[in-house]
């Protein structure tokens, strides 16, 4: 809230003088980056693990982050993930039994620049909120910052007897292409601090959709550590810039290094209970 306030002040009061500058930055040791998720779809008793491993790159480098191939990834000391033959650095496995409240543990062994490291992390499965309905509303534009368009609403009963955290991801197919998505519109997190126990009916997108857009919505319940991880990303990207900003900080994930060769992995391992819906925007 304070950051929104300060950004608005900057926009209104100042033709904020922004200048792109040249800087020489220190180079850090290469670190492992893990995008690891165990998803349990709403309508199934089994889940799928997806892990994408890359390594960090120099900050001003134009090259994409290098994927890491040939890693050894195991879930719960039992399930060995397979690397996708066509996508280097991408590992999967399915048919993981679902158990609400169970802890799932992921172990990774990988090589970066010829040095082997190992990492381990865990998360648990929470109960999901049951979504009542999705519906589409058209809103006309209001002023230069709001062009008007279609907004999707989601409605459900927020469980009032516990503290809940949610993750929402939107992907849009427009004219048969997938636009690159960026925060804050397409990945959002929520907690129920101010709305616990309420019947919620809210708009899930700030930027409007257009007619014929195909919108895929993935709404998940997540654990508090995973929520904090996303909140830290949000803070790092949006609350550490400009006037009155907090100092930036290294994001901490839950994949802990098991030896001295490397620091802890960036990114995290999360377990989700997920509800998915595809909506085509129509009049």
């Amino acid at each position, binding site marked *: 809230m*304070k950051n929104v*306030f*300060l950004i608005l002040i900057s926009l209104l*009061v100042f033709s904020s003088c922004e200048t*792109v500058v040249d800087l020489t930055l220190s180079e850090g040791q290469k670190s492992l980056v893990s995008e690891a998720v165990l998803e349990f779809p709403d309508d199934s008793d089994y889940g799928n693990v997806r892990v994408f491993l*890359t390594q960090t790159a120099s900050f001003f480098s134009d090259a994409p982050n290098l994927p890491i191939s040939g890693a050894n990834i195991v879930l719960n000391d039992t399930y060995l993930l397979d690397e996708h033959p066509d996508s280097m650095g991408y590992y999967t496995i399915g048919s993981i039994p679902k158990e609400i409240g169970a802890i799932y543990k992921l172990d990774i062994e990988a090589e970066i620049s010829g040095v082997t490291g190992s990492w381990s992390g865990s998360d648990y499965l929470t109960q999901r909120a049951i979504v009542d309905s999705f519906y589409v509303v058209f809103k006309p534009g209001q002023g230069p910052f709001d062009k008007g368009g279609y907004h999707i609403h989601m409605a459900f009963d927020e469980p009032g007897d516990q503290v809940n955290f949610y993750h929402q991801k939107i992907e849009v197919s427009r004219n048969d292409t997938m636009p690159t998505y960026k925060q804050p519109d397409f990945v959002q997190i929520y907690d129920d601090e101010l709305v616990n126990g309420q019947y919620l009916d809210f708009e899930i997108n700030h930027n409007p959709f257009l007619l014929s857009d195909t919108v895929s919505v993935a709404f998940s319940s997540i654990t508090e*550590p995973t929520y904090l991880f996303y909140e830290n990303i949000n803070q790092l990207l949006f609350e550490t810039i400009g*006037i009155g900003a907090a*100092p930036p900080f290294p994001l901490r994930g839950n994949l802990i290094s098991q030896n001295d060769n490397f620091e802890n992995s960036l990114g995290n391992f999360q377990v989700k209970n997920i509800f998915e819906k595809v909506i085509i925007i129509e009049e």
Partner: protein
Amino acid sequence: MNKIVFVLFCLSTSLFAQDKFTLSGFIREKSSSEELIGANIICEQLKLGATTNPYGFYSMTLPEGDYTIRYSFIGYKDVIREVKLNKSQRIDINLSTFTEQLSEIVLEDEALQKVRSIEMSVNKLDTKTVKELPAVFGEVDIIKSIQLLPGVTSVGEGANGFNVRGGSSDENLVLLDEMNLFNSSHLFGFFSVFNADAIKDMKLYKGGIPAEYGSRISSVLDVRQKEGNANYFHTSGGIGLISSRLMIEGPVGDASSFMVAARRSYGDLFLALSSDTTISDNQLYFYDLNMKYNSWIGTRDRIFLSSYIGRDAFRFGSLFSSSWGNSTLNARWLHLFSDRLLSNLSYNYNNYDYLITVDQSNFDFDWDSKIKNHQFKYDFSYYHSNEHELNFGASLNSYQFEPGLISPTTDSSIVNTYEMRHKFAYEPALFVQDEWKVSERLLIKAGLRWSSFYRLGVDTMQLYSNGPIEFDELQNQYVSGDSIGFKAFTKNQIVKGYNALEPRLAIRYQLNELNSIKTSYQRINQYMHLITNASSPTPLDIWAPAGEFIKPLTGQQIALGYFHTSENQKWDLTAEVYYKKLDNVLDYIDGADLEFNENLETEILYGEGRAYGLELMLEKKGGKFTGWLAYTLARSESKVTGLSDAEPGINLGNWYPNPQDKTHDLSLVALYRLNDKWSFSGNFVYATGIPTNYPIAKYVYEGITIPHYSGRNQERLPDYHRVDIAATLRPKKNNKRKKQAEWVFSIYNVYNRKNASSLYFRESRESEGSTEAVQLSIFPIIPSVSYNFKF
């Protein structure tokens, strides 16, 4: 026989006691009858001196005899009185302003006063000088002016508050007529709350803080408003690019006077003229209202009523609005018991609050936060003799913290009402201090302050199994401690209490007429913290009191200084070194969530801090050309190691620079009075860039490029420097009319330096997949003109 001996003893005692008499009174400005603070009184024959206190009162005890007493004050003509001192006398003096070049004697007094005085680490700026300095948008600003002095810095343009000797802005006690201001800035630090037209005097203590002050460990900025012209009605004001102001003062009967000053910015009035509602619906302004009334009741009693109300308001269309400000009141009774003893009984009230309103779909709510402070103070000044001047007193502060109330503003809003717990506290204190003139060369001021702080109910405290914050090794981050329940406190039940003795010591040794060395020591406890993890605080930050889990900050400072004035008293040189040690320094874990957090203790780690430095100041006075060069070489650091060796703490437990750490800080100020019509001023400022963090790598997570950082405050923004100039034109005064006017032309940041206020990193807008560093600057070159008048 015994009776005769007794009578003779009494007679001899009586005769002995009558050898000394006291000369006392008030020194005032002749035209307005405003008391002058720090005016000098010199007994020529005995070479004894005194100065007026903050109420303009002096007292000097001398042996019976005939004396020549000289009364003087910088910028005023001396008054010399021949006094036959055969009984205690009250002599009130009126001094007339002296607009021509200052006499040698006046300069001498002011220069020697600095060498002779026991005060060190103190800076004074008269409002006349402040008004002549170049100012951004032409807005005269007291706080920006004191930043041109050694040891005083800002975190950057657009930053709230100021920093003294490496301390954060919440470590400064800012007083306006004894009223404690919790926020001393408008528009996020662009301007201060002080309307220079309403100000009579200001004094900044950076060290050697007297025992009458407490509660903040780094500095005291004591600002006094004018009393109001007691002789005739007088108006002054000005019109500038950002704001206009008006002050009216005058007598009320024979023994009273008043002063009212108002200021308002008006950028938003131009926005309202636009036909485009996306522009006209926006609002941004501030206003100040300073008021004071005083009255003499007889010759020994005086009452004062003083008030300040200031407010900032901001609105962005219909979506978002906010306002914040101080409302303060001071009621004071000054009483002269005798020519040696006076008292000052005061009541102060301050209410600082902010309100945010959000109006977005069905997410409409108000967010209200405030802090209320009542203070009673009873101080005494006893001029025991020329060797001893005693000050003692007591104070009691009560605080009511209302950190946040969220309430829905419409029936359709899905926001629940939520209110953070109110907090209550009392802060009593006692102090005693003696200024002891041991010899002509040696002067000692020793004081002791006992401070205490009590958090009281009604309150609820969370209980933890192993402390409020723990390091989760599995999650690799600090997390809230395991809560095992709550403890409730009834009204006025003590939640937590703290007590501390705070010794103060200052010593001056005069080497000769032109040179002295001084040293000081202070220990101060601070029981309230401004909760912010930003590089600079904002008006939306809240104050949190010490309690079970939030500890008081303790600061000790030792300073040593050398003071020299030249033979002709036109040049002053001051050199000071200081060292500050801080315990229970409070800092926040990475990514701390401070907004609307009922349990801040779960985001806080404690450590130690240190600040040390060298301050040099060379000042030229008198003549057409005046000014000063101030240089500070300093460090300000903290070290937070965490609760155990297995934890990273902050910056892996190593020392790291504080946001207000600036290695070098230089100010060069020049004022040149060409003639009665034209005067010019300019300043050059240079400072090391403030600490910041740069990424050491980047990575992609869920399609988002994320910079990877290491450590805290390990890099620096580019160095800051700029030049400002100003010219003041005073058209020839029309003797038929009493009106005086002047035009002030100024240019802020003459060579348009893009000083970095912050630097961040983002994906390149021109080259997808690349990243770039972006520097945010606030003020480019800004010419301005303002018109000031008085009649």
